[in-house]
């Protein structure tokens, strides 16, 4: 038995570019291929909340589709709960569920409760049990008052909450959430994140794979994150370790009182790599990059010796976005065109 919840080995997926989308210079006899995934090797442990981060068309959704048996890999292999996704697709399906952000699934003529019941039946959840779970989930995401509303009358956010419940109603061993908070307002997104955490804590063996455009969300929720770019995994580590990669030297920001020159000598101080100052009307903002964290004591002493008072001092932590941009080499583009 594979001790891993998910494992991929040299996973590759290509798409033939449709003839109508090829440029005139492309030879019809040699159809061009679009490489969506290129030798992906990922290992996800049971009980992990694993994040997939990547820009548009990076291959995140393609990877999820392969792991949820909707798409076959061109080469390589993938196992979910120890089961091979192509040869044992049926057994894989019994253990998983998936929710995609912005999906429009369901039947408009049915109510929220009926839609959730319908999809629970596809997993063989007994009717009474399904009804209990549905009520509990709707209450958890704050949709209980819309339980008997037809889904054609729901707002985008409410519909997204319903889709979210659909993923949990079958109590899967492994759940795939593809942009689960897309289209949700701040409060609703927070409710969803809170629910995800509680669901993971409820039964430690459950595994959750999350793709998101929201770096803060990934940072807050994920145990580990794989950064995917152009079909390749560039890095896979904990959010803290990924951020640490960006910050080679500790950086501090200080706010000093005006009218004294305590900051003048900082640049020449031993152990200070870089020092920048911005003089405002109420304070002088100083940013120092140090060779090691212990140097901050000398910095404070130097400032006080120069007659300045320290109004605030804080260590600058790099964000996950900084780590992402460092690894990928460009900014964040908020448009999803994944397959």
């Amino acid at each position, binding site marked *: 038995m594979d001790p891993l919840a998910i494992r991929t080995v040299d996973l590759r997926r290509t798409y033939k570019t*449709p003839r109508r989308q090829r440029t005139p210079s492309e030879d019809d006899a040699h159809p061009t291929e679009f490489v969506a995934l290129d030798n992906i090797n990922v290992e996800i442990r049971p009980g992990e909340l694993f994040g997939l981060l990547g820009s548009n068309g990076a291959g995140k959704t393609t990877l999820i*589709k392969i792991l949820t048996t*909707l798409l076959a890999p061109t080469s390589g292999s993938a196992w979910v709960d120890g089961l091979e996704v192509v040869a044992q697709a049926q057994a894989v399906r*019994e253990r998983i569920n998936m929710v995609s952000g912005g999906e429009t699934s369901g039947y408009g003529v049915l109510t929220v409760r009926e839609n959730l019941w319908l999809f629970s039946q596809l997993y063989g959840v007994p009717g009474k049990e399904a009804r209990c779970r549905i009520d509990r989930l709707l209450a958890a995401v704050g949709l209980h008052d819309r339980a008997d509303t*037809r889904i054609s009358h729901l707002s985008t956010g409410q519909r997204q909450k319903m889709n979210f419940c659909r993923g949990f109603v079958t109590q899967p061993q492994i759940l795939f959430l593809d942009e689960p908070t897309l289209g949700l307002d701040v409060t609703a997104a927070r409710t969803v994140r809170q629910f995800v955490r509680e669901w993971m804590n409820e039964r430690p063996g459950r595994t959750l794979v999350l793709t998101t455009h929201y770096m803060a969300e990934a940072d807050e929720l994920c145990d580990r994150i794989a950064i995917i770019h152009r079909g390749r995994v560039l890095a896979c580590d904990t959010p803290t370790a990924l951020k640490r990669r960006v910050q080679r030297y500790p950086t501090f920001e200080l706010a000093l009182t005006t009218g004294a020159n305590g900051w003048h000598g900082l640049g020449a101080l031993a152990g200070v790599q870089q020092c920048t100052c911005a003089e405002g009307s109420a304070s002088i903002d100083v940013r120092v990059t140090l060779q090691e964290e212990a140097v901050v004591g000398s910095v404070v002493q130097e400032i006080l010796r120069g007659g300045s008072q320290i109004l605030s001092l804080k260590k600058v932590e790099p964000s996950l976005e900084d780590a992402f941009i460092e690894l990928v080499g460009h900014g964040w583009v908020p448009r999803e065109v994944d*397959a």
Partner: protein
Amino acid sequence: MTRAAAFFMRVTLARAYPRVIALRRQPGWLLLETVLPILSVSAMAFAYRAMQAPEEYLGFVILGGAMTAFWLNVIWSMGAQFYWDREAGNLELFIAAPCSMMAILAGMALGGMALTLVRALTIFLIGWLAFGVPLAPTSWWALLGTFLLLMLALYGLGMVFASAFLWWGRQALHIVSLLQEPVYLLSGLNFPVRVLGSAVSSVAALLPLTAGVDALRQILFPRLADQGLLPVWVEVMLLALLAVLFISLARYLLARLERRARHDGRLTVRWL
């Protein structure tokens, strides 16, 4: 009942549910889909009456009008349903679920049958009452049995369409349109199919609608049984054979095309 059979039934009933509930929640559709066909049935009935055709011919037209509802349901709601489900995002949820896709198809068929039965019965009753067609079935049980077999064969064909159209995607809608009118002609919904000549009508008998409607007519209007295409028992056997053939073919096609589509990415990638 085994666990697998119970699961199959659970999924079938769940998938049938939206279609059945639509009857109650969208009554406007029922009105529209009943009143309009009645108009075309009436036009044909008046034409036969003007020609002083036997009263049973009016019955042919009314029966044909009712059965047209099933044919339209089979091609539009069964055949093209997976296309709509793919567009809505339901198809990938069906495939990613551990249930049998045949159970989904069976649910679509059951729901479609239930919905259309109400429509067809309404057309038949209005037509019968309005034109006073004499009904003298040789056996109500034979009528019911033949009707059920016809449903099985017809919706079996619908399952084949659904599987095949999963592959054709967007083109499925054009194919559905292409199938609609020729089948009206070949199945002889408004006239005795024998008038097409033995060669054409023999081939047409391979359509469940042709054999089924002809058998139902012979049972309902025994006075004109001599105008039937084949003896009733032959048509019943043919329907049984077609039902088995279509359902088996649908099962085979569904498994094969799903496998193929997963390789090509056609199930989930909308630009392919």
